[in-house]
């Protein structure tokens, strides 16, 4: 407990238990020394941990040791279950008014903050908010990194002259692009596999990417029927990564080659969610190049 100075503004309790003050500490000391108040008069000041008997306050106890015995039989503590609950607010504009302690929100609250300056409290508050933002951004990144990849893929393909003709989102993002002049199409299906922070932190972000490349063929219906028989006879229910398979969209007359891969989104998206457009474009280009070769080779005739 810090020592009082004579000028420190203190509140005190009278013989009837009523709160008094604030007044300079030396006025209360004078009244105790004059025998008007008991040495055990309860005092409170802004830095005090709570209501404290005057004869236990460092710096006062020595002066009061020789004080006359109190006329009243002890001073009651302020009303309320907790003496600290009657403490006034530090720096409160109301603190000089009679009955001010507690007028602005509760003495226990003030006691909670005892020993801490406004600046220290503000700094701690800002620190908590800052740290919360850091954690929030981690969570946000975990839940939105797939959207950043989608945007990167859109940028890579639209930059190259494709136009986006279909987009649907949900657990899986499905996009379809077309070259207006040739009708060539690229399909993208992206599913984020580690959307929760715990998974992302444990194994890193992962996504499943399926890229398709298609071209319109005049006999796509016949080709589609043939492909259905081809796949029906296959034992590969779920293609392994790197396996190229074929499909036909008979309604629009397209045949497609596609490949399924696993992707590490953090190779393309940094912590600030900025996209490495060059790397993403390079990888999409490599996939489209390979799939186009498959389509041309498979359906050349």
């Amino acid at each position: 407990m810090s020592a009082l100075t004579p000028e420190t503004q203190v509140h005190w309790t009278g013989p009837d238990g009523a709160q008094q003050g604030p007044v300079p500490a030396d006025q209360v000391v004078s009244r105790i020394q004059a025998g008007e108040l008991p040495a055990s008069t309860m005092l409170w000041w802004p830095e005090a941990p709570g209501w404290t008997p005057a004869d236990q306050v460092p710096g006062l106890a020595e002066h009061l040791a020789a004080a006359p015995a109190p006329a009243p039989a002890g001073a009651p503590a302020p009303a309320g279950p907790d003496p600290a609950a009657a403490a006034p607010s530090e720096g409160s504009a109301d603190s000089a008014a009679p009955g001010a302690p507690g007028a602005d929100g509760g003495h226990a609250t003030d006691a909670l903050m005892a020993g801490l300056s406004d600046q220290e409290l503000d700094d701690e508050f800002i620190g908590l908010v800052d740290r919360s933002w850091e954690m929030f951004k981690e969570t946000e990144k975990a839940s939105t990194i797939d959207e950043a990849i989608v945007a990167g893929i859109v940028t890579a393909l639209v930059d190259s002259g494709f136009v986006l003709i279909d987009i649907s989102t949900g657990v899986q993002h499905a996009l379809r692009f077309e070259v207006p002049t040739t009708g060539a199409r690229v399909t993208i299906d992206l599913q984020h596999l580690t959307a929760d922070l715990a998974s992302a932190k444990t194994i890193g972000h992962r996504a499943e990417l399926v890229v398709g490349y298609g071209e319109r063929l005049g006999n796509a219906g016949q080709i589609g029927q043939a492909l259905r028989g081809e796949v029906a006879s296959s034992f590969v229910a779920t293609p392994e990564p790197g396996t190229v398979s074929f499909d036909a969209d008979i309604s629009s007359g397209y045949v497609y080659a596609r490949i399924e891969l696993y992707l590490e989104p953090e190779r393309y998206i940094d912590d600030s969610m900025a996209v490495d457009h060059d790397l993403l474009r390079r990888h999409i280009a490599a996939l489209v190049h390979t799939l186009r070769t498959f389509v041309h080779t498979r359906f050349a005739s």
Partner: protein
Amino acid sequence: MGLLNKMNSYAHKSELRESKDEIVVGEIIRGLSHQGWSCHQVAATTDRQQVGFKLAGDDVLSAVYLVIDRRTGSGAVSQALGSKTTVAIAAEARNKVSDPDDLAAMWRTDLGNLFKVPVHGEVRVNHQLNKIVARTHFLVDLDDYVQGTNVNAAALIPWLLDQVGNLREHLRPHKK
């Protein structure tokens, strides 16, 4: 999953002309990504696409959201407006910490919003303590940007940036 069923997941807009709003969304994503904005939201349904971007380093805005809503073409009001597409733009400013003064600012904002409808470029600001959002709507004719297989969206991004700039100035007084 076999590939043959995969194609069923698409809306099968077999013709390019059916995809004007998607084409415009693609151009928006590309154009704004080149501004250094980081896309963090892509939500698309048959008639409505919403994209969100984070603006790292912007002195006022933390995020911008754009909605392309083709549902404008249904309903009595929409019939009166024609079949244009609604483009909604929302800009968001965030203050890390709110303080009691924000309550007074919120009250003033709410009062100012009483008779404000953010259509045809009108800007409405919603103050939610440490998050303040300014939004506006426009009716846009997508034919201005997509004609058949000819896509010409060169003017789209500068126009959007102008609108975002306007919203930024509405939010600047609230940014701490």
